[in-house]
């Protein structure tokens, strides 16, 4: 029976030191990395036959839509559920995302994604949940152009790949641009656009992006993040000019 070797970077808790463990997994047809981790979890035995604790990891939908299983697979930020084991020849290295505080093994604390969305006011202020009686008209062309920016699953892969996301910067990652692009293009979101752009012009905003464009190449949803950054940098600049002349 064919097997795959999986090398996992483990760490019992945030204060502890990391260590590596090697696992040998029997291949199943079309096996994903997430499934391989599950197999290890069911029978946590290292390749040299030692019992160990099950590998802690996150996963939910297993369809690439919830973003829970983002991790470093052979050094690249990817979703474990949508990465096939037989894509790789040698052993597969799994590490937790390094830009987020570690919880345990492959689990990290991604609450700063939610905090960044809250800081940038990524919502449309509503009058209430009642039926207002009219659906905002949204041009087909604009909706089709913007649709892809609504697809962000907040997995954190873009943050991981970004050299600007680090302990010294307030920048959380390019996902924020995707959310804001979608909101700003929306007919109701347009009304709350300017305050959002003003926030984006401040600390941790568009100016923090140095244009490495790594985010776009790792985004599991294929969101054109580089285009989003360029567009928003332009809009932030326009907005500050507008504010200067019109208040």
């Amino acid at each position, binding site marked *: 029976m064919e097997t795959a070797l999986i090398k996992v970077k483990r760490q*019992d808790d945030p204060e502890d030191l990391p260590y590596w463990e090697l696992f040998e997994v029997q291949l*199943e*047809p*079309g*096996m*994903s990395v*997430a*499934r391989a981790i599950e197999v290890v*979890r*069911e*029978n*946590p035995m290292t390749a040299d036959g030692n019992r160990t*604790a*099950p590998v*802690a990891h996150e*996963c*939910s*939908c*297993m*369809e690439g*839509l*919830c*973003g*829970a299983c983002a991790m470093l697979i052979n050094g690249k930020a990817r979703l474990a*559920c*949508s990465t*096939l084991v037989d894509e790789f020849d040698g052993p597969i290295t799994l590490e937790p995302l390094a830009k987020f505080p570690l919880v*345990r093994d492959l689990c990290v604390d991604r*609450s700063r*994604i*939610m905090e960044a*969305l*809250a800081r940038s*006011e990524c*919502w*449309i202020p*509503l009058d209430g*949940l009642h*039926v*207002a*009686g*009219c*659906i*905002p*008209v*949204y*041009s*087909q062309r604009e*909706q*089709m152009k913007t*649709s*892809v920016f*609504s*697809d*962000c*699953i907040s997995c954190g892969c873009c943050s991981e790949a970004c050299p600007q996301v680090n302990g010294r910067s307030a920048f959380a990652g390019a996902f924020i641009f995707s*959310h804001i692009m979608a*909101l700003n293009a*929306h007919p*109701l979101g347009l009304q709350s656009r300017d305050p959002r752009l003003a926030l984006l012009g401040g600390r941790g905003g568009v100016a923090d992006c140095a244009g490495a464009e790594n985010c776009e190449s790792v985004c599991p949803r294929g969101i054109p993040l580089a285009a989003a950054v360029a567009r928003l940098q332009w809009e932030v600049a326009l907005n500050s000019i507008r504010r200067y002349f019109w208040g």
Partner: protein
Amino acid sequence: MHKASPKIIVVGAGAAGMSAALAAVEEGASVTLLSLAEPFRASSARLREGIAAALDTAGEGDTAAMHAAETLRCGDYLAHEKRVKGMCDAAPGIVELLARMGVGFDRTAEGAIRLGKCGGATKRRLARAGRSTGVQVLTALAGQILHAQSAERVHVMPGWEFISLIIDDSGACRGVVAQNLRNMEIRPLAADAVIICAGGYPALLAKHAASVESDGAAIAACYAQGAAVANPEFVQFSPYAIDAAGKLRALPESSLAEGGSVWVERDGRPWHVLEEFFHESSGLVPRDIATRALWKAVRDAALTPDSRANAFVDITQLDPDAAAQLVAPFLDACDALAELDALREPVRIEPAVFATMGGLWVDARHASNIPGLFAAGGSACQYHGACIMAGNELLASIYGGMVAGRYAACTAERSGRAADSVSSDLMNAAKGREEDVVAHIAAQEGSENAHLIGRELGELLVESVWLEKDNAVLKKALEKIDELGSRFSKAQLPDRAEWANAELPFMRRMRRRFDLARLIVAASLGRDESRGAHFKPALPLRDDAKWHCITRGTWSASGPVLDFSERVEIEAELQKREY
């Protein structure tokens, strides 16, 4: 804080839970939202298909009444008519609300919401947002939750698992006990009312296309504490799943309505089974009927008695440029299979469990039989009857969540069960009970493996409550469940860590799976007819005289107690479900 604003705990931050929280906040409540992970990771993300509403932007004369009639018929008349009508009447308003929240629904040339065709509906009724409506709906709702949190009306607690209810001497629900999945702290939380929106139980079965967490643990916990479960025997399967990267994945059915076809390979040629059996109504066939027809064909077309033929969904005849938008969710679901180009070659499909129709028993206002306990979304049994119509899942979650949230907040004041009047003795006793459970799990000894037992239980359920049910098989399954249960008591906790131990919650959820599995099988055995997804070849007909009733199961130490006395209230004529 405002004067005596009622305190509501919502369990689960999916489409239903976030809708419930927002509705409760609008009624003046302050809400604590418990969730396993951040709001946008919920299982609702998987609902690529869209949301059904009789908006009639295509000018076909669609009405909410037609939406309701088709929903009832698809569900084989096992849902109360008034409640289904209430949901379908509210549907256009809900789509409007989502659009106002920022969901980028596909648009027509005029900029109105473009409606897609969907299985089971005679009119265009599916509002869709790009390739993943579920993701967009969750993002929009999460935005509103963050907004409410910034105004200190909602407190989100991601990384906390609901364990059990706090029930007082009068039998009312006064809060929940939850566990922090990182530092493993067990904490009792008092509330005026609790709303369970933690999803259904499809992942209890081995062949499911749901989130791995949808194992019904929250339903089972409430059930064990006295909450009634309705229609547990109704498990939704669909023929349209693909095996992608070792996980079954639901394919959006709208691709078929938009011009795709389904066929079974026979003698090297496509056999269009549904068209042959159901003629012009082939696009309307509910999921359960389509699954049984296709899987009979798969057996019939096999070359040898013990092999089976393959079934395919085929969209290769669609114009590739138009298809990119028409069947965007379908292409998205196929995306994981790097080697597969759905526009060029047919996609091999498998039957899988998509969802469950059963759930906590609730009244018209989503209140359970336990005072102070509400449920919505996949955790409640309310709108789908015996089979779910595409597009109604998201709708029912959001509508049900809003009804539950509003009603829980409005009645909290009158109930006389304010959160701050919960005695610390009651809270500590509830916490102590859960600490005992943890100690009990930690003390389990033996050589059994809980994960493998979980898988065996899932396979057992597939064998017994799958496409066809047989009373003899079901009886045997009950014995088998007891056997697996006693084997589980010899399974050791594989991880002793006191930080971020995922095995302990898993073992606790496993303990409860047996109760729920027993209930599903016992109810399947009890209902001696065929209705929707519940099909007994020995009794192939629907029996309205005897079985037009809601199954109601309650827990007892000697096994589930079933009650079939609640008649389904429907004034419309019950049509034969022939297509």
